[in-house]
């Protein structure tokens, strides 16, 4: 059975790439070929549902691994070890759930795009790119080693680049794709270094083998610092890909891509790949690395939430909310709430994809108007979009009976316990304030787009509900944003079906490098995968209702404030903005981080390259030119020697021979008689010579 599951999962990996190749090659000739790609994704979805059900229902505790040796370098020197590169697939609960999430959202985005991208001149190529992306993403999900993760990591980067810059005629889109690529490169460098630290020490890329060796007490270069460094460097990859501070700047710009792409790549799946990667290496993260991760996550979620307050572009608000929620997941991993982080990843994937597709539907209806100040009152025009959007927004705001409430509440509780046990109180404070801010800016978006008077009557008149291929994905995704899929208890998910299957794995880091609360009591035998101490569990129980109440109050306050300002219009927004102008501008201009990067990194890089160009022009070229000049002089000298000495010698020889020749030619009269005479005299001469000597 496990072999069947492995085979099927490998099939799901390669089906999208087949679609990519075929659609890319023949898409121009056969206009309807994009349907082939959609059908392939449908098959993929069915396969992944089957895999997930079989795996979760019948083998929840097992881990299926299938691997083979890809390259084997045999070393003949005793100083250099032989190197083996294994490729392989690992199926555990997290993998199959991700497999389902990626395939489902990818399929729905394919469906949505049929209508949304209709009439685009690179229609079939768009679907081909989606296929390439799905392939790469599934590769990250399925693999069991860091090498393949890195390969597919770069592949998702490429497909993201292609899709952000899909309308590359637009200057801003081309720039955004470039920015995404460059910013990811910074993170990927860290990821590569982290992978290399592990590979240098353990000679393998495979997760399980690395973890086994760490658990056996074999530390990288024999020190905890290197283990921490490896963890933080691998996390750097996630910082780039999951848009964490300070590399989060590319994600809002990535909204230049088509909206369904934003839903698939920049909201639900690719940006979650960073979280997934950190979750994969979670067990080897030391306390220092975890604290670093938690702090970065907290900073990211806070910064993004404050920026989302003032953005006017509907997609930008969603983008910053994505960054903020990704920060939440990273923070959850940092505070040790592995299962809740993954839980939030899944629930967020669904409701954020729903919101993005909803915004796509709105933008489509408004004839590609993205400014929220031009919208308003769309509630009655687009009821399906409106209601699905409402459900997703309730989920992200953490309102009870939604999926977002379950996952978010768990994260908030975990941060609270973390703050209590380690004294880092700032993390729960940020987490809770961000929860309130999230509710506020999401409802601000709802009120601006769907309620009130239409602000642009012309566009409002033409707005209409989107066709079924666009609304069906919205309905499915909003259904998945309700609590019952994850836990039948709408308040406490810890015994629900989802968290039953996803347990926090046991850390393999030696006890001294772990947080105290993550060390299991030795007295208690390990019965299941609980990593945490009794004290931690008690703290969690202790805070349970406090956390619940606080998150509800903050979400309620956020929603209320948004309603107060944007629905009832009790406060004039513009006047308020005028009153707190510095803060407003600070938020509107995204904390001036783009400008900061522009000045500090881009400009200094430009200056540096200008200096290098000067150096090149003057010093390097000078050296080259100088040596060329010297060579020229030397060869001119050589030329002179050649001309006068060598040629002179040759010519002199010729001259001498010429003189002799002229002399001798005088006696060559051509007359036979003179020759005879010479012969006779010569003989006489010879006679005398012989005679007298």
């Amino acid at each position, binding site marked *: 059975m496990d072999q069947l599951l492995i085979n099927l999962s490998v099939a799901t990996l390669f089906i999208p790439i087949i679609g990519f190749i075929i659609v890319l090659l023949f898409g121009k000739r056969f206009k309807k070929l994009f349907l082939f790609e959609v059908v392939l994704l449908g098959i993929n979805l069915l396969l992944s549902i089957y895999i997930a059900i079989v795996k979760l229902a019948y083998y929840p505790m097992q881990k299926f691994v299938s691997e083979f040796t890809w390259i084997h370098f045999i070393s003949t020197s005793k100083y250099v070890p032989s190197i083996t590169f294994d490729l392989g697939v690992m199926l555990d609960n997290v993998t199959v759930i991700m497999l389902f999430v990626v395939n489902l959202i990818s399929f729905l985005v394919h469906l949505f795009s049929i209508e949304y991208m209709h009439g685009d001149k690179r229609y079939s190529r768009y679907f081909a790119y989606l296929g390439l992306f799905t392939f790469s993403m599934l590769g990250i999900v399925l693999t069991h080693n860091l090498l393949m993760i890195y390969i597919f990591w770069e592949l998702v980067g490429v497909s993201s680049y292609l899709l952000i810059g899909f309308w590359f005629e637009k200057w801003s889109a081309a720039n955004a794709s470039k920015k995404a690529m460059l910013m990811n490169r910074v993170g990927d460098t860290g990821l590569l270094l982290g992978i290399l630290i592990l590979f240098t020490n353990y000679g393998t890329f495979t997760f399980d083998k690395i973890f086994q060796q760490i658990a056996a007490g074999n530390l990288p270069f024999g020190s905890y610092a290197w283990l921490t460094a490896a963890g933080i460097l691998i996390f750097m990859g996630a910082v780039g890909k999951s848009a964490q501070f300070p590399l989060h700047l590319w994600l809002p710009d990535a909204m230049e891509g088509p909206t369904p792409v934003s839903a698939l790549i920049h909201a639900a799946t690719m940006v979650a790949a960073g979280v997934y990667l950190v979750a994969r290496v979670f067990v080897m993260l030391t306390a220092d690395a975890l604290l670093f991760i938690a702090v970065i996550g907290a900073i990211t979620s806070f910064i993004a939430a404050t920026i989302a307050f003032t953005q006017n572009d509907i997609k930008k608000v969603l983008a910053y909310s994505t960054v903020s929620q990704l920060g939440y997941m990273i923070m959850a991993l940092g505070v040790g709430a592995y299962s809740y982080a993954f839980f939030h990843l899944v629930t967020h994937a669904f409701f954020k994809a729903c919101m993005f597709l909803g915004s796509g539907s709105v933008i489509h209806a408004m004839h590609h108007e993205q400014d929220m100040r031009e919208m308003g009152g769309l509630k009655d025009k687009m009821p399906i979009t409106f209601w699905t959007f409402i459900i997703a927004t309730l989920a992200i705001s953490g309102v009870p009976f939604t999926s977002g409430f379950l996952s978010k509440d768990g994260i908030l509780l975990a941060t609270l316990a973390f703050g209590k046990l380690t004294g880092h109180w700032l993390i729960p404070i940020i987490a809770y304030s961000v929860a309130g801010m999230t509710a506020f800016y999401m409802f601000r978006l709802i009120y601006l787009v769907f309620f009130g008077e239409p602000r642009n009557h012309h566009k409002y008149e033409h707005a209409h509900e989107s066709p079924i291929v666009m609304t069906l994905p919205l309905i499915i995704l909003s259904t998945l944003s309700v609590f019952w899929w994850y836990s039948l208890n709408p308040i406490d998910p810890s015994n629900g079906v989802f968290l039953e299957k996803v347990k926090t794995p046991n850390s393999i880091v030696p006890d001294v490098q772990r947080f105290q609360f993550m060390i299991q009591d030795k007295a208690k035998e390990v019965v299941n995968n609980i990593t945490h101490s009794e004290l931690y569990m008690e703290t969690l129980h202790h805070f349970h209702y406090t956390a619940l109440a606080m998150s509800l109050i903050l979400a309620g306050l956020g929603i209320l404030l948004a309603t107060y300002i944007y629905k009832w219009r009790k406060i004039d927004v513009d006047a308020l903005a005028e009153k707190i102008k510095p803060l407003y501008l600070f938020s509107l201009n995204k904390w001036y981080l783009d400008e900061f990067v522009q000045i500090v990194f881009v400009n200094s890089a430009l200056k540096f390259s200008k200096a290098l160009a000067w150096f090149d022009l003057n010093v390097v070229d000078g050296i080259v030119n100088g040596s060329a000049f010297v060579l020229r002089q030397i060869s001119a000298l050589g030329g002179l020697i050649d001309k006068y000495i060598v040629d002179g010698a040759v010519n002199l020889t010729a001259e001498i021979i010429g003189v002799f020749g002229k002399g001798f030619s005088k006696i*060559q*009269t*051509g*007359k*036979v*008689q003179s020759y*005879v*005479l010479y012969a*006779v005299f010569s003989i006489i001469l010879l006679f005398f010579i012989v005679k007298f000597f």
Partner: protein
Amino acid sequence: MEHITLNHFLFVSISLFLLGLIAIIIRKNAIMVLMGVELILNSANINFVAFSRFSGNLINGHVYTLVVIVLAAAEAAIGLAIVLNLYRLNQNINVDEIDQLKN
């Protein structure tokens, strides 16, 4: 009466040779040059016969003389043919003017 010795023959022979040589060198007419050649050949013949006579009456010298006479006949034939051709070419047989070898 003095006995005729080998030296007498050789004297005749060398006189003939010198006459032939002078004829070859100084005569302008090609026919005359040819005749000089004949003289030289004949001086050689006298030498052959004389040496044969004064070295035990061996027949070799006589035989060589006969060969040389035949050779001289052939040489005369070829020489005259060359002269004839020279005449055709230059309208004269003056050896001084035949100096095409020079160029």
